[in-house]
């Protein structure tokens, strides 16, 4: 079962993890990732813009790809949009699998794709004003290893 949500409100990691763990004894491994807003470089807030429709579609395509590559028993993605201040959660990716490497790899694969392909854009507020974040070459590199 896969669940993909794009939402303005916060999420609770423990609820997402509990949903991945059916306690049936078929899940051997749960790998999760939580992305948070960092404020250590003077960030006041960030605002996440997205392309409704394409965003869900892009994520669904990569979820299907992950399910083709790895034995996945459960998968949950939550991505927030709107204005977020430092310390707030941005994204959750959780993968349950019978095997440890599969769970880790699928979670990394999905995070790399969310970073580099899913149509989200960040605007940052700092003392000096607001700017759109530029894409990093390092992120483009990180996705190449999955080809």
């Amino acid at each position, binding site marked *: 079962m896969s669940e993909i949500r794009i939402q303005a409100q916060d999420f609770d990691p423990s609820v997402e993890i509990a949903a991945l763990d059916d306690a049936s004894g078929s899940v051997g491994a749960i790998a999760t990732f939580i*992305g948070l807003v960092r404020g250590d470089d003077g960030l006041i807030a960030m605002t*996440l*813009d*997205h*392309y409704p*429709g*394409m965003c869900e*579609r*892009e994520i669904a395509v990569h979820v299907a790809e992950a399910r083709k590559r790895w034995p996945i028993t459960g998968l949950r993605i939550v*991505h927030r949009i709107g204005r977020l201040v430092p310390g707030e959660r*941005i*994204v959750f990716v959780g993968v349950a699998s019978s095997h440890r490497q599969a769970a880790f790899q699928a979670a990394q694969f999905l*995070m790399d794709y*969310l*970073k*580099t*392909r*899913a*149509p*989200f*854009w*960040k*605007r940052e507020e700092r003392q000096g004003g607001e700017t*759109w*974040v*530029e*894409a990093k070459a390092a992120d483009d590199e990180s996705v190449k290893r999955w080809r």
Partner: protein
Amino acid sequence: MKLLYFAWLRQKIGVSEEELSVPSSVATVAALIDCLKSRGAGYEAAFRDLKALRVAVNQQHSRFDAAIGPNDEIAFFPPVTGG
């Protein structure tokens, strides 16, 4: 066709979405961009540097030489910065 602009493109152009009828000679994304650049200073600024731009045709990442038609949804945006 339906045009969508995201992030700083939307700010430069001043709208997030518009319906446009283009001549049938405008058959690729690149031709559409040339056509849009003639619509004013905002468009001119938004489409100045194509290396800084990405395009999606009907919600799929596409190339500038992709074919387009009157019923397509074309979105322009900078490289994505999600997660």
